[in-house]
């Protein structure tokens, strides 16, 4: 099994961190993983993205031409990456950030989650990324929430470990959403 996932959004929405979490959790489960960030001359307000591959086999190219899954956290990302999703793949879209009409007009399969709004309810829009990861786990069963929790301890600096319970709450709410 191999998942090729593109995660994209505004800088600051935690798209690179979400990718690192997935990759770390994949590694914890014994999979081969790669994480490649966009590092071009990105602008404030532009899109950042990362390519994450989680595979039972050796990872070939870390660059994704056609994604199984695109997580789009804003409209520019949706417009840019929708066309790169395979016909049998799907999009996870933050419907708090993307106009419903745009989502409705897409020919690709998409799951719409109002992640940013729900994150606000949990106290901080910064939880939107992990909320949407919860949905990813619920739809694909690709990784367990326990691996994400272990990965959080690796990815977050120790001074932020006190936030892990609320991160996990966001993940689980996302899974049930």
């Amino acid at each position, binding site marked *: 099994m191999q998942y090729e996932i593109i995660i994209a959004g505004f800088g600051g929405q935690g798209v690179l961190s979400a990718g*690192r979490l997935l*990759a*770390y959790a994949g*590694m914890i489960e014994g999979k*081969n*993983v*790669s*994480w*490649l*960030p966009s*590092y*071009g*001359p990105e602008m404030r307000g532009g899109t950042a993205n990362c390519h994450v591959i989680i595979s039972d086999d*050796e*990872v*070939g*190219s*870390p*660059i994704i*031409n056609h994604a199984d899954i695109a997580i789009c956290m804003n409209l520019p990302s949706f417009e840019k990456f929708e066309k790169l999703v395979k016909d049998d793949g799907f999009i996870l879209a933050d419907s708090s950030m993307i106009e419903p009409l745009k989502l409705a007009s897409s020919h690709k399969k998409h799951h719409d989650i109002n992640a940013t709004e729900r994150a606000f309810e949990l106290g901080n829009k910064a939880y939107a990324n992990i909320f949407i990861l919860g949905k990813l786990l619920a739809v694909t069963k690709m990784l367990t929430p326990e691996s994400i929790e272990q990965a959080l301890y*690796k990815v977050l600096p120790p001074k932020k470990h006190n936030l892990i319970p609320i991160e996990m709450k966001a993940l689980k709410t996302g899974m049930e959403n």
Partner: protein
Amino acid sequence: MGEKVLMKGNDVIAEASIRAGCKCYFGYPITPQTEISHYLAEALPKIGGVFLQAESEIAAINMVYGASSAGIRAMTSSSSPGISLKQEGISYIAGAEIPAVVVNVVRCGPGLGGILPGQCDYFQATKGGGHGDYHNIVLAPNSVQELYELTVRCFNLADKYRMCAMLMADGSLGQMMEAVEFREIEDIEAIDKPWATNGMGTRGHSNYISSVNVNPDELEKLNQRLQAKYREVTKNEIMYEEVNCDNADIMVVSYGTTSRIIKNVIKDARKMGINVGLFRPISLWPFPYDELGKHASHVKAFLSVELSAGQMIDDVRLSVNGKKNCYFYGRTGGNIPSQKEILDEIVKILEKEDR
């Protein structure tokens, strides 16, 4: 088995240098390799080493020259335009016969170019770069695990042969994260350096290191010694990987990030009934001419795929020596060829060859 950790390529190069016994790092920041400096600024002082952000790339390479002359393992890193600035120092290091490790996380050029990945410094790395009859050992990893292993190897080879060893990665490798295991790969032994200018002690004579020599016969003798050394390196230190080569219709030659794209192309091609082989030079200098050339007996053609306008293709042609046609496909400017582009090229070449 050690623990696997998920790390960024640049951080792994830095960690590898520390594990290889590097005590001095001199550098000047440039994308896409600045994380190396960042990591070592924190890590080297903790082990009693020296981290110094030099005033320029030229200063940094000459500081390596100095530290290395004193017998200390030293490294500098940069990306393409910065490596151009270091060429004079690298030539001096070759002439003075001292070890040095230089890391080039290649971006796209020419000029200041862009910050996206490239392989357009192949000529510079393998065919000179600086002035004079000299070579650097050039190793090209294609995974984060190899960034660790080959960085350590660069230090060992530099000490063993008293010459500059260059690690040549590209922007993607520097920026990507993969699992790495810091396993014991080869002895990181302290090689005796009786030539070092580190104080006479009980030696009874003083050492002198320089690359200036105005006596023609003595300078010729140095050149002959260097060439003998390069022959020795060529005999002992060639590295390469072969994938699916035995029954290949076409042999793709590729290194670094592009070689990983070819691994995907091999799978796609198989579905179409095409057998694609991958020959991946790991040591770009010394280049595996004979090892690649022997495949001319059974493949229809060779294809060099590079993030350049066609540089390694020259060495592919020298390997094949006219026995088969050698083709080139590459992208520049920081663009990376897709699997489909490469596969289309392969189909086109095979149609032409079968005609």
